[in-house]
């Protein structure tokens, strides 16, 4: 925001309140109420407003207080955000960033525990990225803001408390590249967002059992980085996808299709995909735990895959 005065933030409680998860804390004091705009509760309209502002030269960052609320903005995200550059014949670009916390939290109930990446993935003309560490959150956010394309940045409700040392000097990550978390030889585990931590936990157990998993955080949910993924598949010949999305029509489903299409010759076993249950996230803690993939399941899956 300091580097480019056209960058502005819009959303509910982003200004004086500092953001429901304090992501925009301190910004309103520094940049004023217009650059950090507290909007009324009208997701469809303020997202549309962000799109109109982007078309006319600004670079808005629109926050959905919870990603789930952006379902109300689906009209604008699908029709205008994704498609306007094309339907205008390339005349108007829409350098907007739409971001917010999503994913399954701690007993937040079904409607506050949604994963919208599967709903948005078909929209042509948008890019989707999911951050998972403080390092990649900063890098991806900068890249998203600087990108000429509309980008949806998925954050996770449970990852805001992570602490990490990050470089002092400026860095920007690539929106289209995946991240190699742990190189390995036996199996490729593809994951993103919070499931990365479940995978790494499972990886510790797997290493103790003598396995050598390669863990890749795909980061870019749309488009997939088929180079990093493909190179890994060609090395290990076994793929496990671990995601928090629902099974049906999720990111995992698309990824399975993409890998099968492109690298099927290199696979020694069918691709395994661990996703959340096709169930509205229940409130009860025990039930909630069983809807998402847990490290123990990941360990079992790898053992099965490597037989």
């Amino acid at each position, binding site marked *: 925001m300091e580097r480019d*005065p*056209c960058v*502005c933030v819009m959303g509910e409680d982003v200004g004086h309140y500092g953001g429901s998860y304090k992501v925009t804390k301190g910004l309103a004091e520094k940049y*004023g109420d*217009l*650059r950090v705009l507290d*909007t*009324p509760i*009208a997701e*469809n*309209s*303020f*997202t*549309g*407003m*962000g*799109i*109109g*502002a*982007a*078309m*006319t*030269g*600004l670079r808005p960052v629109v926050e959905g207080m919870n990603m789930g609320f952006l379902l109300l903005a689906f*009209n*604008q995200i699908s*029709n*205008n955000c994704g498609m*306007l*550059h*094309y*339907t*205008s*014949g*390339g*005349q*108007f*670009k*829409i*350098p907007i960033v739409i971001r917010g916390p999503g994913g399954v939290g701690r007993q937040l109930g079904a409607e506050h525990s949604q994963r919208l990446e599967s709903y948005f993935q078909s929209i*042509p*003309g948008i*890019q989707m990225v999911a951050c998972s560490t403080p390092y990649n959150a900063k890098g991806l956010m900068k890249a998203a803001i600087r*990108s*000429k*394309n509309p980008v949806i940045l998925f954050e996770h409700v449970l990852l805001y408390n992570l602490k990490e040392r990050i470089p002092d000097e400026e860095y920007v990550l690539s*929106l*289209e*590249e995946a991240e190699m978390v742990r190189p390995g030889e036996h199996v490729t585990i593809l994951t993103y967002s919070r499931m990365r931590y479940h995978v790494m936990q499972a990886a510790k157990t797997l290493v103790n059992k003598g396995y050598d998993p390669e863990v890749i955080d795909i980061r*870019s949910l*749309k*488009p*997939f*980085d*088929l*180079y*990093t993924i*493909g190179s890994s598949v060609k090395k290990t010949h076994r793929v496990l996808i671990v995601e928090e999305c629902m099974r049906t029509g999720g990111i995992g489903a698309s990824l399975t299709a993409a890998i099968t299409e*492109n*690298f099927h010759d290199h696979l020694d076993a069918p691709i395994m995909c661990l996703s959340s249950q096709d169930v509205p996230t229940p409130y009860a803690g025990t039930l909630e735990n069983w809807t998402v993939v847990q490290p123990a399941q990941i360990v079992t899956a790898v053992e099965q895959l490597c037989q």
Partner: protein
Amino acid sequence: MATAFWSVNVIQHPRCERPSIASRKPSSAFLGSTLKLRFNPPSRSNFGFSETLRKSSPISAISDVFEEKKQKSASSSSSLLITKEEGLEVYEDMVLGRCFEDMCAQMYYRGKMFGFVHLYNGQEAVSTGFIKLLKKEDCVVSTYRDHVHALSKGVPAREVMSELFGKTTGCCRGQGGSMHMFSKEHNVLGGFAFIGEGIPVATGAAFTSKYRKEALNEADCDHVTLAFFGDGTCNNGQFYECLNMAALWKLPIVFVVENNLWAIGMSHLRSTSDPEIWKKGPAFGMPGVHVDGMDVLKVREVAKEAIGRARRGEGPTLVECETYRFRGHSLADPDELRDPAEKAHYAARDPITALKKYMIENNLAKEGEFKAIDKKIDEIVEDSVEFADESPQPSRSQLLENVFADPKGFGIGPDGRYRCEDPKFTEGTAHV
């Protein structure tokens, strides 16, 4: 001037079935009295808006003021509503709109354009009345009935016709079509197929104008945005959400309602609890004005004030233009539901004939000058068809362009290169 604009218009509502309800001035401001208009809504109930008409209100509406002005105008030319140059410019723009739309109908039935085409015949006064007052930097946002808005804003007829024919020389390279007219040069921000979805975009454009002035300190930035939409849209959530935000932040926007009484086959009276749309403005803290949308001079006067308000930073205005579309909703609409008497009534109020009559009666121009303009426009429209006919169809290479402003968005392929670097990408055959 500003106070007159805050008036609440309580002239008999033309849809009222009981013309005897007391009102300020019995001969309403609308050109041609609409009191005799018989509407027979199926349920035959009174819709209950007669009470609202009895509410007292401070000042006479703006339309009244001009009715008086017009009656006096014959004697003194200084109180004429328009100069000769302006009048001819306005006439030319309306004729361009009418002629162009008529040509569209012809071309559609000859199989030169396809899909959904929504024509603007009859509503020209609204487009011309407002848009001809704008600067090039001001923005216009429209709906699917957008050909004439684009033309009024300055997009060449050739580009619009080409776009309708789906050729590469169209304003959107043939990728948008009838319902998606965009022009960066002339600041036409669309052309939207879903009703209501353009209003937030217009609000955003107005927000940028305010942002430029206050956050980027471009002190002389006073760009105004006009959002055009219909009566059906006024029951949609996005309309209300944007009225709220625009009034809240005093955005430089004018919400122009083209109330042509019908949303495809749904009469405005059957779908709206309170059909007087202009009243919804004050509920959000902005003035609401009702104007006769078949009279370009009245529309122009209201537009001057509304645009002036926005430019001065005083905030948004809601303007309801009572207008009518002479044709069906689209070229696919058989238009069987509308009462022929209603159509005849509005046909008699054709804005182009009305302006011509006014100008001739007030000795502003002669018949010959109008004929010359008619001929000129005919030539422009014929030329646009020829141009569109001869223009090339988009080639395959255009398929994947413009999906992203930065084509890296198609990602990295299995070979490690960005897909957009694949030579097949520019051929339109790359796997993305």
